[in-house]
């Protein structure tokens, strides 16, 4: 049965993500990036010290966000392997060799080794496969972002690891400026309450990347008292709190079907036409397109402003 290990793995991953990020993110980050001299040694978000000996020429990404980051840094040419079909942006990434094994939760080690990479970047938690690859001489670096700031820091970290620190600084400064503009505009519009559904009333709480994005886009999620980043929410509480806007992360179902469920169909937001589907890729991938994700959220939350 896939259901056990999958859900267990996801739950564990999310838990670890929350703690790992809580611990590792103390120091402020916007220091001007120094010109990288190799070898570079950095500690990743799982506390592993990773050394990259020389500027990487053959990089495997095992997370669509890292694929997007490398392309944004102008290093798309050096990506020789990606996780799989979800690495769909930019479009030319779809043509790169996929390395995911069956199930998609870990890479096929043989495929990775055959690509002879000098760096593997991932946003997946844990897994023995990382140790295996490190033993085989492939540096494996894990980033786990639970906020927009984390994501910016990760982009800069990837820049340092790949000798593109300057480009990374340019990308993150631009992202930060855009988001600050959106946040300022959204805040001027006054506060709006919202609920973001990932699937089947699974939602986001403090500690989830998406939760941070919602706040930056100018909304107070009604799930602020959640005890974990990705809880399944009580429909009773959802009906009682009756959010101004209901956002559903796109999962292949038309609005009518998302709306037509017990309790949901009676929500004020649904009856008054403020149920919006948002592109899950834009808000759940800690990469350069988070800005577009925040813009999309802000547009749904404050349609008269954007």
């Amino acid at each position, binding site marked *: 049965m896939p*259901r056990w290990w999958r859900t267990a793995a996801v739950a564990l991953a999310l838990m670890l993500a929350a703690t790992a990020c809580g611990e590792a993110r103390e120091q402020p980050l916007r220091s001007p990036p120094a010109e990288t001299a190799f070898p570079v040694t950095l500690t990743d978000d799982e506390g592993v010290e990773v050394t990259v000996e020389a500027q990487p020429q053959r990089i495997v990404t095992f997370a669509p966000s890292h694929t997007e980051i490398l392309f944004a840094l102008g290093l798309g040419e050096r990506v020789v392997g990606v996780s799989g079909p979800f690495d769909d942006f930019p479009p030319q990434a779809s043509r790169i060799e996929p390395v995911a094994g069956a199930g998609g939760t870990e890479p096929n080690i043989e495929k990775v080794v055959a690509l002879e990479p000098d760096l593997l970047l991932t946003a997946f938690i844990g897994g023995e496969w990382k140790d295996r690859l490190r033993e085989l001489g492939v540096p494996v670096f894990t980033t786990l972002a639970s906020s927009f700031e984390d994501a910016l820091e990760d982009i800069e970290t990837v820049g340092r690891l790949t000798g593109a620190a300057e480009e990374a600084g340019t990308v993150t400064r631009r992202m930060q400026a855009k988001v600050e503009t959106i946040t300022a505009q959204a805040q001027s519009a006054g506060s709006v309450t919202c609920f973001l559904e990932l699937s*089947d009333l*699974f939602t986001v709480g403090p500690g989830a990347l998406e939760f941070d994005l919602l706040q930056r886009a100018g909304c107070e999620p009604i799930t602020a008292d959640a005890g974990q980043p990705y809880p399944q*929410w*009580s429909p009773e509480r959802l*009906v009682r709190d009756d959010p101004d806007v209901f956002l559903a992360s796109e999962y*292949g179902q038309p609005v009518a079907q998302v709306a*037509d469920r*017990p*309790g949901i169909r009676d929500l004020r937001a649904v009856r008054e036409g403020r149920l919006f589907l948002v592109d899950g890729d834009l808000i759940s991938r800690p990469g350069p397109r988070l800005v577009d994700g925040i813009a999309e959220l802000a547009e749904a939350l404050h349609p008269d402003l954007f």
Partner: protein
Amino acid sequence: MRRQGTMIILVVLLVAAVLVAVGVGAVWIPPATTIRLVAWKLGMAERPHGVAPSVEIILFQLRIPRVLLATVVGSALAASGAVFQALFRNPLADPAIIGVSSGAALGAIAAMLVTGGAFAGGLVVPAVAFLGALAAGLLVYRLARVGPAVQVATLLLAGVAVAALISAVMALVLTYSGERIRSIYFWLLGGLSARGWESLAAAAPLAAVGVVAALGTAGNLNLVALGEERAAQLGLEVERFKRVALATGALLAGAAVAVAGVIGFVGLMTPHLLRLVLGADHRRLLPASVLGGALFMVLADLAARTLRAPEEIPVGAVTALLGAPFFLYLLRRQRREAGARA
């Protein structure tokens, strides 16, 4: 006397559990308000004043249908478990273990993929789930059939093998179906969150037919429990009866799985617990399982939606956490008593 008493206690406990489950939830509604609202809906009182519309929605669109659905799902799973345990003459026989639940789940997934998602109400998903359960049951039955008769041990082994095969097929289907069916993962996990009247309307008729049919098999299940040869000597058309019982168990499992996903432990444990108290006579055990399964499921779902409110806990985890220790305790006590008698 003790046995009659047990049935009465079960009825009382079930009624009490349903009342508590309707009264308590993630959002607090004062009992007086609940009573007045229910009385109004039943046409026995005026519409109460000053009650927020959201309270009405919570009570009538979310909580009450969910509690009723819990009784239906619990009854169906427990009755299915009781039938299979008797039919296979094996205490481990359970719709989940012999492949029938997997068949139902595969059928439901296929229906959902075609109709476009786990939210689809109506009778299509339960009906296809039943067909999946029945197909799995018949496949197991055919595989185990050697010559004119079916050996129970072979039946069980074939069931386990078919369950493994279907689970593997399901894993492959889900792995390669992409993001579109993410909600099906959550549905497979089992649970009653945000199920409403549509789900109840879909499951209740099939479950009702299944429960009536199961109660009808009780006397013959007693005969089969004596051994197939003996049952045949006593005038039972054993092979025909086994097919009927198999279809009954499949119908019950299909109805439950279609609306609530795969929830473990209820079908396996409820009949066992009650057998320890009531003995093995299926004319008592089956109705008691129907009541006991409903009681267990209502309580498990109550815990799932309130213990960590406003978050929900997977109900399958609750059934296992509540069920396993209690079951082990009863099992040990029974063994100790048996040891003391010997």
